């Protein structure tokens, strides 16, 4: 039988299919560290081309991995068994905009921020805004059910997806809507990390831009006191649109890079955004400032105008990049805990990092209890690499013990699949496995992702067909 590459070339032509080694190299990795080359890449312009490629891959017995911008942090876009990568860089259009009903239909390759920019003139926006929004795609966001700093009041990607078009394992194109009768296929496809089908169109919900927005920055002596303030704010029933914490290490890195105006002498800074009517914003700010000061805030300052506000946000969203400038390597985690546990868990993370002699930076969505400790290390030092692995596992176990979970917004991907069984029982995973059995009985969509490979969850991880061993 002809190879995957030659059959794809025959069917779709050289304009759509990439097979040269130098072309494939850029599709072998995402923001996670692993790297495996696919045997072919297609860059389709339509769902029909996606479907044709999926059918050929199926006939060749090759896996299929969808890819947005490759910004995922967990190896979700890494073609761990080679095969076919479907890149959405050409399917990047806003197809329909329905301003009256606040809906849009987009292609998966549309860059997240470009959607909000394109529709701002109508007084509406697309709420999910992961920090990667300048480069990450809405299709990729759908794959991981991406969050972002505004999840606190707006929810994650799944709360903004009204329907999908997807290609199944047989190469058939389907359309779903959350308003249709029947099982909510949309809901289970969002966040399935490309393991159930390939999404080719997305219907999204849009929101009205608020009348007023205010961004404030409070300085705290340390992360624990800032965390206590956040727990108290949520506990008081206040839900601003964002509550973000950066510790001293992150704040220094961010200020050195962006000069956004964060207080550099603070042990931690709290970034607060309040949106709504002018009255809401004014009342919200005074209530929040009162709680912050009662929990040890050293200063409280509101951004004067939109420019200052945007600068603070740009710096916050660029934090991971700024750390990249000062650290040889870092490992970012994504655990999520109930919000009353924030001070305790931040203390525990600090101790774990100290025990393993690793510098740690914290930049996180405090209002959601979604933590992002960055463990800083040097990849060339095997002892440090082992320390990061050990400390990382210890942090996850600590978060689970506090009633939390291992991923709030980044996804499980390749990276965390073996830790999934720390959270879920065999029965829990078996139920998820049943969904996969239906959508992807051959385990050809994004294999080695989400589900543990271990024997304890054999029913879930086991392929229907014989498969090659996973790369080490």
């Amino acid at each position, binding site marked *: 039988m002809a190879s995957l590459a030659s059959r794809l070339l025959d069917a779709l032509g050289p304009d759509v299919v990439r097979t040269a080694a130098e072309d494939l190299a850029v599709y072998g990795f995402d923001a996670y560290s692993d790297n495996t080359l696919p045997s072919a890449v297609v860059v389709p312009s339509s769902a029909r081309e996606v479907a044709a490629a999926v059918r050929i891959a199926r006939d060749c017995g090759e896996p299929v991995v969808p890819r947005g911008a490759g910004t995922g942090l967990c190896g979700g876009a890494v073609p761990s068994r080679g095969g076919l990568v479907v890149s959405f860089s050409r399917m990047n259009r806003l197809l329909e905009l*329905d301003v*009256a*009903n606040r809906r849009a239909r987009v292609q998966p390759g549309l860059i997240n921020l470009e959607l909000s920019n394109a529709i701002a003139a109508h007084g509406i926006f697309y709420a999910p805004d992961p920090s990667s929004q300048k480069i990450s795609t809405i299709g990729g966001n759908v794959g*991981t*059910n991406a*969050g972002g700093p505004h*999840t*606190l009041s707006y929810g*994650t990607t*799944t709360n903004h997806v009204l329907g999908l078009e997807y290609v199944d394992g047989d190469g058939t194109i*389907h*359309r*779903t809507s959350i*308003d*249709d*009768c*029947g*099982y*909510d*296929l949309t*809901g*289970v496809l969002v*966040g*399935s990390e490309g393991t159930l089908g390939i999404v080719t169109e997305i219907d999204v919900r849009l929101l009205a831009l608020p009348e007023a927005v205010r961004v404030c920055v409070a300085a705290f002596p340390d992360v624990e006191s800032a965390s206590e303030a956040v*727990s108290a704010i*949520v506990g008081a*029933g206040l*839900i601003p649109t964002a509550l973000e914490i950066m510790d001293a290490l992150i704040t220094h890195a961010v200020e050195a890079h962006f000069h956004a105006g964060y207080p550099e002498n603070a042990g931690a800074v709290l970034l607060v955004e309040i949106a709504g*009517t002018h*009255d*809401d914003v004014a*009342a919200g700010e005074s209530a929040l400032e009162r709680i912050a000061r009662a929990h040890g805030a050293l200063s409280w300052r509101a951004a004067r105008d939109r420019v200052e506000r945007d600068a603070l946000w740009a710096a916050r969203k660029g934090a991971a990049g700024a750390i990249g400038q000062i650290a040889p390597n870092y490992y970012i985690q994504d655990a*999520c805990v*109930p*919000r*009353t546990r924030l001070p305790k868990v931040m203390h525990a993370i600090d101790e774990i990092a100290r025990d393993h002699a690793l510098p740690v930076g914290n930049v996180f*969505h405090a209002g*959601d*209890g*979604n933590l992002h400790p960055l463990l800083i290390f040097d990849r060339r030092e095997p002892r440090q690499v082992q320390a990061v692995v050990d400390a990382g596992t210890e942090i996850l176990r600590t978060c689970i013990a506090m009633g*939390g*979970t291992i*991923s*709030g*917004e980044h*996804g499980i991907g390749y990276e965390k699949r073996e830790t*999934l069984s720390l*959270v*879920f029982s065999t*029965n*829990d*995973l*078996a*139920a*998820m496995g*049943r*969904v*996969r059995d*239906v*959508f992807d009985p051959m385990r050809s969509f994004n294999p080695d992702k989400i589900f543990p490979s271990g024997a304890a969850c054999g029913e879930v991880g086991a392929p229907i067909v014989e498969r090659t061993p996973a790369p080490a």
Partner: protein
Amino acid sequence: MIARKGRAAPAAGELRLGGRAPARVVEPADADELAAALGAASAAGESVVAFGGATLQQTSNPPRRFDVALRTTRLNAVYDYDPRDLTCGLGAGMTLAALARTLAQHGQFLPLDAPRAREATLGGTLAAGWGGPRRLAYGRPRDLIIGATVALADGTLATSGGMVVKNVTGYDMAKLYIGSHGTLGILTRVNFKLLPAPAAQRFAASPFEDDVRERLIAHVRSLPIPPTALVLRDAYAAHADPEDRRSSPQVTALFEGSASNVERAIRDYRSALGAAGVAETRLCDGEAAKTAFAALLDAYVAVPATSFTLLRRGVPSEAPRRALHVREALARSTAEAAGAAQGWETITDLLTGDVVARFILRAPGVDEAVAACAAMREALDGAQLIAASDALTPHLDAWGSVPATVATMRALKARFDPGDVLAPGRFVGGI
């Protein structure tokens, strides 16, 4: 099999579906007992229908087989509620009213917006896929759930999600069980994120004349501070004096938020109504507003005389036109049914796009009802049944149409419930 403490066991006859009673009723004390009962029934080849408050049972078809009614009523515990976390984990058999009372003590609420909150359970509301008029403001039930445990047909319990507000750990299984009408599993525990209760609530009701309808809709749809609920209600009574047959349609709105916002929103709303030529608005606050809103929710599934009610979901801009078409169809059906027809009602949700239409008969006229239902479905371009008199349920299909993705849905059903134990035949496409 399982004794209830201190109360009489519910008679099987009380839990009829499509005129048929179950062979037996089981009321387990907790999730483990429920899963064991389900597993045992499954092994014995019996079919099982889950019952909460039975308030939305008519939103799906009567089951093909009906051996066991499995009541979740005793699964009403608060498992995990620290108000400072703004989350809670609850037994699926808890009623919406009981939960509302618990949350109100801490100034919190959960806007599931299902009718008959005193009887409706969390599990039943979710299983029925209910979505109420405030879902644009606060999210749908599927947006508020953060974790769930279900009993599966093989007698196992499976959990997904958790007690955190942001979670991408594993598949989002709760989405699959919501709206599955008990055909994939039976919810035993549900976790939600909660909302702080609004400081002020104000309910407004204004009668209007039909000739200002379009202007009114245009004005109230572009308010700077939108209400959290906004519906038009129309009704026609065929038997009344000719003068009273068509009561004035009404626009009703609920405003919620800080006191200053609600005050400003009401001011804007009244001037919008005034500009559209609507003079009179009755307002109520606090408890009275809550009661008025609850009465609106109850109206969605009311079953006056012999009647049935259809729901069409859609986009808000199309709802007024759809509602007009169905009112025309209702008027024709009323005329055709002559003496048998008693009247009709519609609810048009200007925020969510829902259109609800009810045909009311004086006597159990099955043929008239079936004909009217077909005409209404044509006018609405498809619709789901959400309420009906017992005499009509065996004759009206709850779904009316089959989604294009039904093959995938059948495969999911077969994989989760290969013995067709759970609510057989109740769902779309005979699932």
